[in-house]
């Protein structure tokens, strides 16, 4: 009989991909970040140490652990360590302001909080208010910190800890990813080890990725598009070249050249910036063989310029939503043929369009896009009613389909064309923004009588946020006052670019504010 070591065991859990890569490529660079290369062996060791530490602190299978961090090695280690304890990672954008972080900590019933020392001003006051927390880890120099309950992330990840006895199965939750909802409060999208490992495999397949690739990450890990760059890279045993953001493009250019990066994932805002910089001083990146875009449409006129910047690259146009990670992609060979299409369903999944009568749409007919596959979320955390609105019954008893809420049409070849959203969510800089969330903040400013927030077309942002304010009579209110409240309470991308003061806002015959005609 064969030794048990030789038996090919299928991968079931997301983090097993890391342990496999560490076994196969221990000395290879897993992550290059903050001027330092970390090998797979080192990465795995930190993950095991931290996982052991979290278990010692009482973190158990199914516990929600919030990561509120920048794109750092510590953040990547935290993701895998939480998974390795059988717990669920909840990753929150570091730009998130206090009120929203408080909402997320309470909504998910956080057992752990892992953050960066420079974000202390935001999370500190919430520690005492979050009774469910069993442990708080902070990365960076915490020597001047007086709170004894806070533990150094570096100490915890460098202290050898006991091996783990893990009981978790594929159906267990792996992550909650909070996304803006049309009612204003963010919703926690529940993904399982199964949905995520499935999505990973499908993405790796159509992006034609391999162990040789060097993937650039400048998008936040809190954005699933950014997160999956890490997951794909680790799964393959490839190298992730990670930066905190695209804020300083010259740094990114240096990294691309120094590491000979092969994969460049971006959003239209980043591509627009690249193009405006290229106009100042032309440059090319011949090492890059794949460029990917999602979150918003890549304008067709930008593609020829991108081909000059990335002369060797296949360019992928894609579409997706956090609820199923990704829906479809256009084969890069068709980019000049199907100018505005986002292509077909990702491998192993299906999509279809139903018209207003609920029947399959004919080619060219507009309808609602539905998705079928193992990549679909389990639902929204703590929100069964909102879940029922998007996960609907399939023809197969017991199976759920995802209703994307987006209008699409299909051509004769089955390629998809985005036609618009059915709700009023704004997509700006590749991020979803709920107008209600912004309106709530503006309405809280003294002197604001009515407010309406809409998206307006914008070359760089996709859509820009515009806010109409009707002040109370006789009140001195300035744009500055309103904008300041927005900056204090909202993530940067949610702060309106334009403000317009009006006498009153148009109403429907039931007295509700009507946004039709506001632009």
């Amino acid at each position, binding site marked *: 009989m064969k030794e048990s070591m030789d038996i090919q065991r299928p991968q079931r859990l997301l983090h097993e991909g890391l342990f496999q890569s560490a076994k196969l490529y221990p000395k290879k660079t897993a992550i290059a970040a903050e001027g330092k290369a970390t090998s797979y062996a080192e990465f795995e060791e930190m993950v095991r140490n931290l996982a052991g530490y979290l278990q010692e602190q009482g973190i158990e299978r199914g516990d929600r652990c919030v990561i509120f961090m920048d794109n750092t090695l510590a953040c990547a280690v935290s993701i895998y360590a939480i998974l390795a304890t059988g717990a669920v990672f909840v990753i929150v954008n570091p730009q998130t302001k206090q009120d929203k972080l408080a909402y997320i900590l309470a909504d998910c019933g956080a057992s752990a909080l892992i953050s960066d020392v*420079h974000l202390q001003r935001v999370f500190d006051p919430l520690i005492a208010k979050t009774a469910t927390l069993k442990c708080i880890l902070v990365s960076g120099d915490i020597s001047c910190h007086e709170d004894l309950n806070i533990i150094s992330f570096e100490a915890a990840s460098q202290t050898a800890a006991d091996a783990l006895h893990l009981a978790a199965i594929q159906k267990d939750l792996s992550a909650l990813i909070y996304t803006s909802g049309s009612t204003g409060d963010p919703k926690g999208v529940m993904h399982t080890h199964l949905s995520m490992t499935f999505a990973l495999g499908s993405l790796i397949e159509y992006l034609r990725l391999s162990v040789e690739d060097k993937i650039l990450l400048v998008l936040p890990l809190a954005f699933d598009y950014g997160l999956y760059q890490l997951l794909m890279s680790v799964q393959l045993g490839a190298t992730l070249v990670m930066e905190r*953001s695209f*804020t300083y*493009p010259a740094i990114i250019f240096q990294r691309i050249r120094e590491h000979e990066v092969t994969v460049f994932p971006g959003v239209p805002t*980043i591509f627009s910036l690249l193009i405006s910089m290229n106009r100042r001083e032309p440059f090319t990146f011949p090492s890059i063989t794949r460029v990917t875009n999602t979150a918003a449409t890549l304008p067709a006129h930008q593609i020829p310029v991108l081909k000059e910047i990335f002369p060797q690259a296949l360019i992928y146009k894609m579409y997706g939503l956090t609820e199923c990670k990704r829906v479809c992609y256009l084969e890069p060979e068709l980019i000049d043929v199907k100018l505005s299409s986002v292509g077909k369903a990702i491998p192993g999944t299906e999509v279809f369009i139903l018209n207003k009568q609920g029947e399959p749409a004919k080619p060219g007919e507009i309808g609602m896009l539905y998705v079928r596959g193992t990549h679909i979320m389990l639902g929204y955390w703590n929100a069964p009613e909102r879940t029922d609105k998007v996960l609907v019954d399939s023809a197969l008893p017991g199976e759920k389909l995802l209703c994307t809420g987006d209008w699409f049409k299909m051509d004769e070849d089955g390629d998809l064309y985005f036609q618009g959203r059915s709700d009023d969510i704004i997509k700006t800089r590749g991020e979803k923004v709920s107008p209600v969330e912004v309106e709530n903040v503006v309405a809280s400013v003294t002197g604001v009588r009515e407010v309406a927030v809409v998206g307006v077309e914008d070359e760089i942002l996709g859509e820009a946020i515009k806010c109409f304010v009707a002040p109370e009579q006789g009140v001195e209110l300035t744009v*500055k006052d309103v904008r300041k409240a927005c*900056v204090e309470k909202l993530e*940067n991308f949610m702060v309106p670019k334009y403000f317009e003061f009006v006498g009153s806002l148009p109403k429907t015959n039931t007295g509700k504010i009507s946004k039709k005609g506001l632009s």
Partner: protein
Amino acid sequence: MSTEEKIRAFILENYLFTDDQSELKNDDSFLDQGILDSTGILEIIFFIEDEFKIKIKDEEMIPDNLDSVDKIVAFVHRKED
């Protein structure tokens, strides 16, 4: 206005939307404090080029030159020399 005052005024007005001087320390990292993101950097570059009549090269757009008021002031002075 001195170079420092001009830069402070630009950041406060355009990114923090306030004239309250206490909201911005000269050594605050724009990255750490979430003051600037990717769409902001080119605006700052254009402002500096225009205001101080200097030309910034792509390879100079790095945090060492631009990530705080202090760093921008030092960078502008170096370029002016």
